[in-house]
């Protein structure tokens, strides 16, 4: 049977409670799947729907709504179709099922998300070992409420005799001196 992305979206809506479908461009669609159904939906997409390449797995912090958005970007190489699966999970209970048994590299992505966003993936290999930040004991640094500037000001000190410009003001002066 010929591959139809609208058919796949219809199946996701019907079987896995998908909603908020958005077509960004031809060949790139996004859809939101409830957390409980997400791994089942991704398994269904990888086989039989042919989305066999995991392009990336990352998180977006929607601090104002108190949610993390996990984005699983899957690619169907035979039909040149990308599909982004958005999964919203609460910030205060940031736990998600692991997909390392579908793709080996997912374990690395999940390890990074555990470290940078504090999202836990129980059962994922080496997920609790530090990945990039060895010896880090602060809060997960990629969360929106972690202020890098404040952290740097508290942790490091300026070297005497050096001055710096505010980048926005400086660029405005350089590029648009009349405005």
């Amino acid at each position: 049977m010929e591959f139809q992305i609208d058919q796949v979206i219809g199946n996701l809506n019907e079987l896995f409670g998908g909603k908020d479908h958005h077509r960004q461009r031809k060949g790139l669609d996004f859809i939101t799947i409830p957390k409980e159904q997400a791994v089942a939906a991704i398994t269904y997409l990888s086989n039989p729907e042919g989305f066999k390449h995991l392009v990336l797995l990352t998180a977006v912090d929607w601090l104002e709504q108190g949610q993390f958005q996990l984005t699983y970007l899957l690619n169907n190489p035979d039909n040149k179709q990308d599909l982004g699966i958005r999964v919203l999970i609460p910030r205060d209970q940031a736990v998600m099922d692991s997909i390392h048994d579908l793709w080996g590299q997912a374990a690395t992505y999940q390890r990074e998300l555990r470290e940078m966003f504090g999202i836990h993936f129980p059962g994922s290999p080496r997920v609790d070992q530090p990945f990039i930040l060895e010896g880090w004991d602060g809060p997960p640094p990629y969360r929106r409420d972690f202020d890098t500037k404040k952290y740097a000001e508290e942790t490091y000190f300026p070297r005497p005799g050096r001055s710096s410009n505010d980048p926005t003001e400086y660029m405005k002066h350089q590029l648009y001196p009349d405005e």
Partner: protein
Amino acid sequence: MSKKFFSWNEDRSLYPPAKPDGTIDIDLSSHKYLKIWHGPQHPGITGNMSLELTLLGDEVMACETHVGYLHRGFEKLMERRKYIQCFPIVCRVAVPEPDFNEYCFASATEELAGIEIPEAAKWLRTLVLEMARLQSYLMWVGGQAGAFGQGIIGQWTLYCRDLVLDRFEELTGGRIYHMYIIPGGVRGLLPDGFRERMEETLRIIERFMKDVHSVMFNNSVFKKRSVGMGVIEPEWINRFGIVGPNARAAGVPMDVRKDDPYLKYPELDFEPVTGTDSDIYTRADVRRRDLLLSVDLIRQIMVKIPDSGEIRAKTPNVLHWKIPAGETYSRAECTRGEFGYYMVSDGSEYPRRVNVRGPSYTHAVSLLEKMIINVNIADVAGLMVSLHTYPPEIER
């Protein structure tokens, strides 16, 4: 696949048996094993990452990768900067290939903002991306040869790379970081006489690549150490997210330039380079032929590229540029495979989230840890270079 390479010890009674998942039980208190660090400062490591190796004799029994020596937190920094202010950052994500970062970031921004760039800018972008591929491959040839003890080849190809950097310098003003591809287009047209100088550079590169082919690819030491070594099984390709030349050497014609054509690639005549044996030698040969394909593509581009015309679409004042809310993913084929930027905008002047999808992320961590088992310590550097990994893009 039976493991039979140059350094393979036939007497396996000395080594503990492997469990079904390929790992072995290591009892460090038996004093049979030696734990050493390979990197982070080591000429055989492409960049700054380290491998924690457990050796028995001179064979690797287990490996854990450690990254983080180059972590600069770029993705977080971008959330605090306006789109135009991110530009000095994105080119530094993958140090030897800044242009793919610039292109992916610019095209994602343009897509969210609904900007169509002029024709001439598309040609210039295609040219710059192919030149970036050429210089990155030239550097890689030197690394691969050096890892197997042929230091002189690295000196030849780095000379060739310097010539490409000269062309970059006259086109963009910069040698390593160009910041030439900006949102809305590019920064300049071709300078006078660029075509002739480019053609001469390409001729020199072709001459040197003939020598490299004779001296490196027909060299018995290089062949003995690389043929049959570090094989990537075709069924791992999707299982571990392998892309680019590493996948093409296994016979899978994965090339974003063909699969998801961007810029002016549909108007160029080429076929993805593939191999069959998927070992270090085949991967090296695929990259060598891809390098020559890049030379051919630059010649095709040079014929078709316009000398004048609009090179930049009109954008709002970039310091007050609010990008409409949305999310997108923009990809390009870099020398190591699919390179992409996932960008989320919340409608403000600052990106909500930018995520870099670099091919080294999968190749250097999960794949390398799997492939390195039973490899001789002397071949670890050659194996790692053959995956063509750049640690800066793993930790961003």
